[in-house]
């Protein structure tokens, strides 16, 4: 009986609490799982070096994060959305319709995408054309588009090892897939002349370039890189697509393939020699600056040389430092909202 009374009292107390809004004193961040490791490194260092509490960083995907950012203004909405792809006009429209008018775009650096296989297996040197010819549904053969029948990498390019084609690529919900489509498949499509053929056949946007074969040679991985690594561990013949930082943490299990003769590293990506990289961003709701304690300090700390510079902890973890970091620092200090997308 007493326990029952106590529980009833607790129920009343908790509903009473529910009525009053509690002021939030920590920064709330959500978004890309690619940016998550960097954001958590910065959040941790921020909590250690400032008197503000450590920000809470959620993952869940770039698109979901931007949508959450655009839910509105107020303490129950997040302050920052991490994103591995640029914000879309639809997000900006959604934001505007919910009263989120000023958004700051902060580019934190570049992320390289690498192709890696089991450390004890064959060594690969790819070009985008190899990947297109290995994975696309239709490829060019003797000047005509035909169904892809390549079975081994040697079928694709005699210089490659005679090993069955099996590729673990990120699933379509990943931001990484967009980069893979654009910088690898479309580049390969163009290089092999397939793009011309698609356009000639009436496919105006050459959408056939990113249509993949469905006979099991290419496998979509909807999980994260740890899943790709586990699959490669079980299937030594496979080649996986990883983020550079993930590869750098697992160099004892993976060997990386060169792309067009360039070895991926933070240096070769920064110089633009290594072709497959993408910028990483976070988006800040300007209306929350000055309301949520520490928000301005956090974004300034994030883009400071100590953190995002070439010798900072983010670069050590695999982020390619942005050569135009000084510009970003200036924009952040002035709280410059982003210009309309062009």
């Amino acid at each position, binding site marked *: *009986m007493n326990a*029952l009374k*106590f*529980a*009833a009292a*607790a*129920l009343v*107390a*908790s509903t009473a*609490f*529910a009525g009053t*809004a*509690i002021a*939030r004193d*920590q920064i*709330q961040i*959500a978004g890309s*799982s690619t940016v*998550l*490791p960097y*954001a*958590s*490194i910065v*959040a*941790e*260092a921020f*909590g*250690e*070096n400032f*008197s503000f*509490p*450590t920000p*809470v*960083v*959620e*993952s*869940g995907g770039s698109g979901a994060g931007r949508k959450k950012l655009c839910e509105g203004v107020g*303490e*129950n909405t*997040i302050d920052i959305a991490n994103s591995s792809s640029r914000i879309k006009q639809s997000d900006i429209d959604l934001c505007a319709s919910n009263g989120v008018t000023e958004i700051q775009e902060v580019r934190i650096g570049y992320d390289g995408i690498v192709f890696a296989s089991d*450390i004890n297996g064959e060594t690969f040197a790819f070009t985008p054309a190899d990947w297109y010819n290995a994975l696309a549904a239709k490829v060019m053969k003797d000047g005509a588009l035909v169904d892809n029948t390549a079975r081994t990498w040697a079928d694709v390019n005699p210089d490659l090892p005679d090993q069955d084609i099996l590729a673990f690529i990120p699933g379509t919900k990943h931001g990484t897939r967009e980069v893979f489509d654009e910088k690898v498949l479309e580049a390969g499509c163009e290089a092999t002349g397939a793009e011309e053929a698609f356009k000639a056949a009436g496919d105006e946007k050459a959408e056939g370039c990113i249509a993949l074969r469905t006979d099991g040679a290419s496998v979509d991985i909807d999980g*994260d*890189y*740890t899943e790709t690594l586990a699959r490669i561990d079980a299937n030594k013949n496979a080649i996986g697509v990883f983020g550079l*930082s*993930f590869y*750098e*943490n*697992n*160099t*004892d299990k993976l060997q990386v393939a060169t792309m067009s003769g360039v070895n991926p590293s933070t240096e070769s990506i920064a110089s633009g020699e290594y072709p497959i990289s993408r910028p990483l961003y976070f988006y800040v709701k300007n209306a929350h600056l000055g309301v949520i304690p520490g928000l301005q300090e956090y974004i300034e700390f994030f883009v400071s040389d*100590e953190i995002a510079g070439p010798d900072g*902890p983010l670069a*050590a*973890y695999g982020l390619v430092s942005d050569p135009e970091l000084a510009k970003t620092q200036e924009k952040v200090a002035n709280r410059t909202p982003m210009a309309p997308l062009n």
Partner: protein
Amino acid sequence: MTDTSADTVAAAGRPKARSLYQVSARTRKRHASETRFRMMGLAAVIFSIIALLGLMTSILSNGLSSFKQTYVTMEVFLDPAKLDKKGNRSPEDLAKITTFTIQPLIQTALAETMEARGIAVEGVNAKTAVELISKEAPAQLRHFVLANPELIGQSVRFELLASGRIDGYYKGRVTMESAALDRNISPEQLTLADELKAAGLLESRFNWSFFTAPDASDTRPEAAGLGVAILGSAYMMLIVLALALPIGVAASIYLEEFAPQNRWTDLIEVNIANLAAVPSIVFGILGLAIFINFVGLPQSAPIVGGLVLTLMTLPTIIIATRAALKAVPPSIKDAALGIGASKMQAIFHHVLPLAAPGILTGTIIGLAQALGETAPLLLIGMVAFVREYPGAPPEGFFDPASALPVQVYNWTQRGDPAFFERASGAIIVLLVFLVIMNTVAILLRRRFERRW
């Protein structure tokens, strides 16, 4: 069925009398089918035991090592020239010390310690030697300096975490061969670690901080712990217990003892049974829509998690409570009513106490189910990197927190293999909690259950 058909056959015309000692073909067939069934049953049990053993071995072999941790013990000189340039020891100035200024102090301290002990390994300089020590160490020192500013200018003995790769070396995860290929550690650094160990500066101990420390970022797996997750899970369980038990019991008593038996109660009954089978993510969607967007409760907070899990646990508790109430013989209630007790007195004084063990068992099983739930927490922002401990309840219910299964999920996604070990360790902790809860449920039932 077989018996009756056998009888009809026998009645139709028995060919000749046979001795009972002589086993007929029919009997043999029946025995054989029984043996087959037994074998299949046994095979099913053996299969499940093998699967369980496989799971346990994989988790234990991967995770037990997370309960040990490697530490480096050494003296660090808290250089006033670096830490307190103005020499006034004022808290405002000290608060500006960053972990970046402290890092060189550790580097110097390690280099000096190595020199004093005559430890040197070819190919390792002061800069690479300090990579043996966790990146958590500067934060630990900064915290210490801010708490004890009077010790600036003195040498203080610190116990610092060794880096994840070094820790992995003493757990067999990192070997000389793998280190040769690894960009984050070199065989020379491992040799240095061995030398430090021989000199007594480096040792492995039980890892208490695994249970108390908060989560850590990807660069320092060695510092990651379950503290925030355990607190968050505990808070949520408190909320679930405080809400689901009284509501569930009250609803069951009403439905079982007071409600008229009509279509409405049938409908409610069907719905409760249905809710018990609804996928838990649905409750997460509900929680996001109602508790966060409509009521305006904070994100990532145990209060929202607790409310969502309460909704999820209620059907389980109601079903278990109703079964327990039904199991109490009606004669007891009738006797109470017969000597003039009111219906409420009869229920609260006689039926409920007798049903209590069953109710508690159902509640604990419901709680255990809620403890292991991740999906509904995904949508309310609890699947997150949270480093601050939530405050003491009740305010702490509104602070961001993590939960045990969430921590497992988060750690399995990280790039550094050391987090895989931590995740397995977290699974062990979660399993231990579940085993304890279920054991308590069984003990309660054994101790207090009455059969009629």
